[in-house]
Structures are given as C-alpha cells and as structure tokens.
C-alpha cells in the first residue's frame, strides 16, 4: 500500500479517523474500569476502618458525621457492637506536612485511647517523614501512640515539650502527624458530648500538662500549634 499524500482532505480524514478510534477505545476502557476504580477507593477506606477500630458489627460509613474543630473538618465514623458504642474512627487532614496534604484515619476506643491509625495519603520525604505509617506504632522508646490517649499524654514531639518521640530528622512531618491526632481527639470529644457518651479528658498541648476537668476553652486552640 502506498503512503497517503499530504493533501488537506487526506490529513483531516486520517487524523479524524485516528481520533475517533482512540476515543472509542478510551470510552470502552473507561466503562470497563469505572466500577473497579470506585470499588477500590471504597475498599481502601473500609479496610482502614476495620483496622483502626475495635471489632464492630455496624456500618460506620453509613453513620458518618462531620465535626468542625477550629475551622478544620473531621469525619467521625462511629462503631457499634450489638448496638453499643465501641469507639469511633476520626479522619483528619492537615496541610502542615513537609510537602502537601497528610490524611490520617485514627481509631479511638470509648475511653479516648488510640486503638490504631492508618495514613491514607501523604507525600512526605521518602525515608524520613514517609516513615510515619510505621514509626508511631513502633513500641521502642516513646514513639508509639497506640494505647495512649491525647487526654493523658501530650501528643507533641519531645522537642516541643510533648511526650512522643518525633521521627529522626523529620520534626515537621511528626508535628503535622501529631497535630492531626490531637485535632481528631478534640473532634471525638465534641462528638461524644453531643451523643451523651463518656467524655474523655481534655488535652492541653500548649502547657504540656493534662487536666481532668472537661472544659470547652481548648477546643480549636490545640489544633494549630
């Protein structure tokens, strides 16, 4: 077959046909992958919820609520077993990380103790801030936040007068991570108040001390520090 000459109708026809063909191919591919893409996004969140919460038998995503703490919106996912609350998962976002958004989902039990956490999204430096997924569950030293409560311990890096070891050479990422957890805890407290649940102790990350009297004056103030 001889090569087509570069006349105007030839050029338009050939480009047109190629574009239509590629459009068709993409359209087919889009319809084929649409369901799996949505499903994998949903599954990621469902799997994270199952990991950070104590065993539950309801659908936390169906009962999700938003709570506003100092201008930041946190998503609350309540977990129940036989109709009784067993804890909540809180999803929080911060822009204070080293590079861009950090999204964390953190599970609390009924007393406000951290059950587990997952980092859903981060773009921190590989080998430094990106270690946050593993670092804050490592039992060595005072790194781990698992089994602790922001109402009792001060969830700030030791450098800032807190009780948690920051990731070596990644203080900014550690601060961002811990600030999301503190904010999530405040969001959980607000939620607990509206639900008539046990209200855990308030946290005060500014002085490094914790108080046992529930007061409202710290809501919002502890998020950005």
């Amino acid at each position, binding site marked *: 077959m001889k090569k087509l000459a570069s006349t105007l109708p030839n050029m338009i026809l050939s480009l047109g046909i190629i574009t239509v063909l590629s459009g068709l191919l*993409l359209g087919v591919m889009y319809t084929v992958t649409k369901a799996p893409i949505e499903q994998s996004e949903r599954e990621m969140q469902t799997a994270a919820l199952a990991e950070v919460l104590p065993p539950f038998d309801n659908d936390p995503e169906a009962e999700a609520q938003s709570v506003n703490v100092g201008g930041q919106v946190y998503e609350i996912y309540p977990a129940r077993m036989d109709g009784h609350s067993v804890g909540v998962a809180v999803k929080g976002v911060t822009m204070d990380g*080293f590079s861009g958004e950090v999204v964390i989902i953190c599970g609390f039990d009924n007393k406000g103790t951290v059950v587990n956490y997952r980092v859903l999204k981060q773009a921190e430096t590989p080998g430094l801030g990106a270690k946050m997924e593993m670092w804050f569950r490592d039992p060595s030293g005072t790194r781990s936040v698992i089994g602790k409560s922001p109402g009792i311990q001060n969830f700030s890096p030791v450098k800032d007068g807190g009780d948690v070891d920051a990731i070596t050479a990644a203080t*900014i990422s550690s601060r961002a991570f811990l600030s999301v957890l503190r904010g999530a805890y405040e969001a959980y407290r607000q939620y607990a108040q509206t639900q008539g649940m046990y209200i855990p102790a308030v946290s005060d990350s500014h002085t490094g001390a914790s108080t046992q009297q529930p007061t409202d004056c710290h809501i919002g103030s502890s998020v950005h520090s």
Partner: protein
Amino acid sequence: MLYLSIIITAIFINNIVFSQFLGICPFLGVSKRISSALGMGAAVTFVMTLATVVAWLLQTYILDPCGLQFLQTIVFILVIAFLVQLLEIVMKKSVPALYQALGVFLPLITTNCAVLGVAILVIQKEYNLLQSLTYGVSTAIGFTLALWIFAGIREQLELTAVPRGMRGVPLALISAGILAMAFMGFSGITIG
C-alpha cells in the same frame, strides 16, 4: 499570603527540576551556554503560562461538567502541541526578532514534561484560575533559574580537565546533584 507561599514554594522549595524531576531533558540538553539557557527559559515561561491557563479552563468548563476527566492526558498534550505550533506561526509572522531568538527552542517544548506536568498538577492541587496562573509563572521562573545557574556551572566545567569517562553528561548530572543539595536548604521554609 497564599500567593506568596505558592511563589516561593514553586521557585525554591519544590523547584521543578531539582525536587520534582520534571523538564530534565531540556535541562541537560540546552544548558551548555548561558545565552541558550535563558532563551529556552523564556520560551518555556511563555508556553507554560499559556498552557496552564488554557488547560485549567478546559478542565473546569468542558472536562469536569461532561464527566470526561479520563480524557485529561490526551486533551492536555494536544493543547500544548497546538499552542506551541500556533505560537511558532504567530511569532514568525509578527515578531521575527523574537522568533529568531526563541524559534529553535519551540518544537522542543512539546515534549517538555514540565509543561504537561504543571498543567496536571494545578488540577490535582485544585487551584483556582489565579492560583494556577501564579503557580505556572513561578514554576517557569524556577525552571529558568535552575537552567541559568546550571549553564553557568557547565561553562566553567568545560575549562577543567576531567577523566574521559566522566566527561559530558555524567559530570553534568553529578553537578546537578550537588546543586539539588543546595536547593534542599530551602526545604522546610514555611510562609505565613
């Protein structure tokens, strides 16, 4: 304050070449002379600014409302190719002096991934039009700055005696690595 933060971040902290690894081909290809580096920088600034705005408008007013986000890559690359072509024709006809200076760099820009990269990044970051414009211009300035500094270094390197295997690209890459280390000093700066 937000705009200042976008500008400083794009030029220094997240420099497109040294920390995002975009636009490496022209960075290595046209950095032998300061004059050609500046010419390339100016051409990229022109196209990147225009392409970012056009891509943003297309995404917001055509792709998003029609649910055609999956056509993003193909639409953006065609827009860039079209803009470069258009710019070449317009410049040749109306400002021949500028065409003389920048003309040779224009065809290279179509395959400069920094241009497509920035167009996609402003959509991912969910910037509005003015923020996208700011980001596009500052990224281009960051690119020009990187190219300019690097060309200065390479002009000096030409004069030094270097082992045979290291001559040319290997030494250029290692110098770029050291320059990238210097740019890392900017990281962690927060504005506002």
